[in-house]
C-alpha cells in the first residue's frame, strides 16, 4: 500500500505564519519587546495613509502603524465614543487605547486623511494627555512651489517634537541614513508588488497583505529582510497557475477589511494584481534623494512623486482618476473591485470619479462596502465570483 505523497511544506509558509502572528497580536508584543530590549527606547504610532516615518526612525524610535483592531477585538468602550454612522476604525483604535493595548506608545501621529482621523487626534489629546500627539497637515496644494516651505517647516516642527520625545537631536545625517534605509524598504516593497503582478499565482494576496502589514509593526530593517526572504522563498517554489481574473482592488487604504474578505476575493477566482493597502509602504515613488537637505527631499518627494489616492487633491481635472486606469494597464488587470469601508467619505466620494474613468476605457468594475468586522463573506465571494466569471466569459473570443 502506498501512502499519498505528503505535499512539501511551502518555503514561504513560516514567513507568512510569522506575519500572521504579528497581525493577530493586538497587544503588539513585537513592538513591546523591541521597546523593552534597550533602556530609553520609544515607540511612535501613526495612522493611515502617510507619515514620514524617516523622522521617527532617525530619532532612534520605532514607527508603529495602527490600522484599527480588525475583526477579532470586541469593541466595548469605543462604541460609546462614536455614532453608528461613523466608520469603525476610530472606535476600534480607541478600544485599543482604552484597554491599555497601546500603553507603551509614547507618541501618536494623525495624518490629514479625513475628518474622522483628524478629530481622533483631538480625542487622543484629551484622553491620553501624556502621549505626544501630533496632527500632520499633509499639504493639499500641489502647484509647484506652493507648499514646499510650509511642509518643510511642519516637518521641522515634527522633527523637534520627536527629538524632544526621544531626548536626542535628530541630525541631518541621521535623517539621511534613515531615508536610505526606507528607500531600500520601498524598493523591496515594490519588488514584491511587481512580482505579484507578474506571477500572481505565486503570491497569494492574503500573503502579500500580511507581509505588508508586518511592515507596520517591525523595525524597517527587519521588514526589508523579511520581504527579501519571502521573495527568495516564493521564487523557489512553483505554485499552480489558475485561470483567474486579474483585478485591481481599490478603496482599502484606511479601515481594513477582514483577512477573510481578501481571501474570499481570491477564492472567487480573482488575482489581485494591485491594491491600495498600507499605502505608507510605497506612497513615495522611487528613491528619496539622500544627498542635500533631507527635509526638503522628503517634502519634494511627497509633493511631486507620490501615489495618488482619494485623500490627495488632484489639481488637474483632466488627470483626475487616471491613476486607476494606469494601475489597470500597468498591471495587466482585467477589472477593478472597489471595496470601501462603510461611511468612508474619501473612498466613497472618490469612487464615482474613478468609475467614470473606467467607463471611458471600458474596464469593468464592481463595488461593495465592508467594515473591519464584517462577518458575511459569502455575498462578497458570490459577487466577486460572478464578476470574475463574466470577465472571462466576455473576453473569450
Amino acid at each position, binding site marked *: 500500500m502506498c501512502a499519498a505523497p505528503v505535499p512539501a511544506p511551502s518555503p514561504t509558509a513560516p514567513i507568512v505564519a510569522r506575519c500572521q502572528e504579528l497581525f493577530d497580536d493586538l497587544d503588539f508584543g513585537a513592538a513591546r519587546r523591541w521597546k523593552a530590549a534597550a533602556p530609553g527606547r520609544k515607540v511612535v504610532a501613526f495612522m493611515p495613509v502617510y507619515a514620514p516615518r524617516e523622522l521617527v526612525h532617525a530619532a532612534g524610535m520605532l514607527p508603529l502603524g495602527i490600522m484599527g483592531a480588525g475583526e477579532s477585538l470586541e469593541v466595548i468602550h469605543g462604541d460609546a465614543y462614536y455614532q453608528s454612522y461613523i466608520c469603525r476604525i476610530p472606535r476600534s483604535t480607541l478600544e485599543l487605547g482604552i484597554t491599555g493595548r497601546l500603553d507603551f506608545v509614547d507618541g501618536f501621529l494623525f495624518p490629514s486623511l479625513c475628518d474622522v482621523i483628524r478629530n*481622533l487626534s483631538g480625542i487622543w489629546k484629551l484622553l491620553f494627555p501624556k502621549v505626544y500627539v501630533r496632527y500632520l497637515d499633509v499639504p493639499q496644494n500641489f502647484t509647484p512651489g506652493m507648499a514646499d*516651505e*510650509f511642509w518643510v517647516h511642519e516637518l521641522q516642527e515634527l522633527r523637534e517634537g520627536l527629538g524632544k520625545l526621544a531626548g536626542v537631536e535628530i541630525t541631518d545625517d541621521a535623517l539621511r541614513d534613515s531615508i536610505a534605509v526606507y528607500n531600500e524598504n520601498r524598493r523591496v516593497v515594490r519588488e514584491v508588488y511587481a512580482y505579484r503582478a507578474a506571477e500572481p499565482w505565486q503570491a497569494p494576496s492574503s500573503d502579500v497583505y500580511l507581509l505588508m502589514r508586518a511592515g507596520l509593526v517591525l523595525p524597517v530593517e527587519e521588514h526589508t529582510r523579511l520581504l527579501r526572504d519571502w521573495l527568495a522563498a516564493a521564487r523557489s517554489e512553483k505554485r499552480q497557475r489558475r485561470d483567474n481574473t486579474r483585478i485591481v482592488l481599490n478603496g482599502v487604504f484606511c479601515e481594513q477589511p477582514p483577512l477573510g474578505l481578501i481571501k474570499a476575493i481570491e477564492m472567487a477566482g480573482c488575482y489581485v494584481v494591485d491594491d491600495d493597502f498600507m499605502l505608507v509602504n510605497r506612497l513615495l515613488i522611487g528613491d528619496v534623494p539622500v544627498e542635500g537637505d533631507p527635509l526638503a527631499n522628503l517634502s519634494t518627494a511627497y509633493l511631486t512623486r507620490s501615489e495618488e489616492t482619494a485623500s490627495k487633491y488632484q489639481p488637474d481635472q483632466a488627470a483626475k482618476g487616471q491613476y486607476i486606469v494606469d494601475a489597470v494597464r500597468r498591471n495587466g488587470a482585467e477589472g477593478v473591485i472597489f471595496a*470601501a469601508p462603510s461611511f*468612508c467619505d474619501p473612498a466613497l*466620494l472618490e469612487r464615482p470619479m474613478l468609475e467614470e474613468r473606467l467607463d471611458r476605457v471600458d474596464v469593468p468594475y464592481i463595488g461593495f462596502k465592508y467594515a473591519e468586522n464584517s462577518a458575511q463573506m459569502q455575498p462578497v465571494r458570490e459577487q466577486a465570483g460572478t464578476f470574475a466569471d463574466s470577465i472571462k466569459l466576455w473576453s473569450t473570443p
Partner: protein
Amino acid sequence: MSKPESKAAGKSEVVKDLSMLKQKEMITRNYDALTSAPETGRKVAATFVPGNLNELIQVFGLLNNLPEINAIQNGMRKLSGDYILEAEKRGHSEDVCTYVKADLGSMAKGNLAPNGKPLPRPDVLLLSYTGCFTFMKWFELVRNEYKCPTVMLHVPYQGEGTTTRNMRDYIVKQLKQEVIPKLEQVSGVKFDIDRLRELMRESAKAEDDFVWVLETARHRPSPIDAYFGSVYYTGPIFTAFRGTPDASEYYRLLRAEIEERMAKGLGPITPEGDMKQQKYRLVVEGPPNWTSFREFWKMFYDEGAVVVASSYTKVGGLYDLGFRHDPDHPLESLADYAMGCYTNMNLPQRVGLLEKYMKEYEADGLLINSIKSCNSFSAGQLMMMREIEKRTGKPGAFIETDLVDPRYFSAANVKNRLESYFQMIDQKRRVASAA
C-alpha cells in the same frame, strides 16, 4: 419699532421685522444676479462657507455662489430629498455627506435657484479647503461636470490648538501667487488692495454688530435664540454679503430690533410668535436639520427652551472671540479668518469653547444635534458631550438627525429625546434646590 408685515400662517402669527425683510430682499437680489449672469455677463465664483473669501471675490466683481447655501435653501423648500435620491440613483453612496448629494442631484435636475431660474455655470471654483475634508471631493466632483478652473486654497487645521506663522504664511503665499492671479484671469479685473481694505472695513462694522447681537443671549430673558433664530442672523455675514453696505445695514437694523426687544423684556421672535417663557437655557453643538427646521424649532418653543449659544453660528468665524477683518493687514487677516472657523479648531479647543459658552451664558445644559452627514462636526461629539458634562456638572443630550436628508429626521424620536432631557434638567434642579 414698527412691524411692517404681519400675516396669518395657520394658527401662528408670522411677524417680519425690517431686518428680515432686508435680508430677504438681499437674498432675492443675489439669486437674481446669479441667475441673470448669462445675460449680464457677470462672472461667477463658487466657494464654501467656512473661511470664505467674500471680500476678495468682490474685489474682482465676481458673484459668489455658495453650494452649501443652495443645499440649505433646497432643504428648507423640501426639495433636497429628491435631489439626494437622484444623486444616489447616479451612483453616489447613501453613506456620504448629503450636502454634496443635494448639490449634485440639483445639478442633474436643472440646478434651479429659489427664483425658479437655473443657476449659472461657475467660471471658477474657489476650493477653500477649510475645516472639512469633503469640500475637496465635492469640488472635484463638481469640476468634473463644469470643467472650469479650480483654485485650491489649503487652509491648515489647528491641529495643535493654535495657528502659527508658518500656517499663515502658507495661506498668504497661496493667496498672492495663486488665488489672486487666477481670479484676475477669470474676471479680467486687476487686483486692487485698497478696494479689498475698503470691503474689509465694511465687514468689520457688521461684525461688531453681529457679535453684539449674539452676546445679548447672556440676558434673562434672552432676546434672541442663538441657534434657530441666529442661523438667520449669520446669513449675510457668512455668505455673499460680508463686506457690503447692505450687510452693515442689515446688522444695524437687527441690532436696533434686538435692543428694543431687550428693553421690553421680550424673548426671541419665533415662527410661532414671540417666545414667552424661557424655562431652559441651552448651548447647542452641531448644525441644524433643514428639512424640518420649523418643526424642530417648535419642539424647543413648546418646551420653553431657548438656545443661548451655539457652535454652528461660528462656522463662518469666531467673531465673538475677537476676530475682525483687518483692513491694515488684508491678506494676513483673510488667512487668520479662514483658519479661525469653528470646524477648523481641534477637539480640545471645541470642548473649551463650549465649556466657556456653558458658563458665560449660564446654560442649563448642552444639546448636541449630531449630523449623520458630517464627519467634520460629528466625529468626536460623544466624547465632547462627556467632557462638557464632566467639566460643568450640567447634563448633556444627544440627538441624531441630518442636514438635508429628510429620511434621517425622525420627529417622534427627537421629541421624545428632548422631553426626557428637559425632565432630566428639572430633576437636577430639584435636587440642587433641595440640597
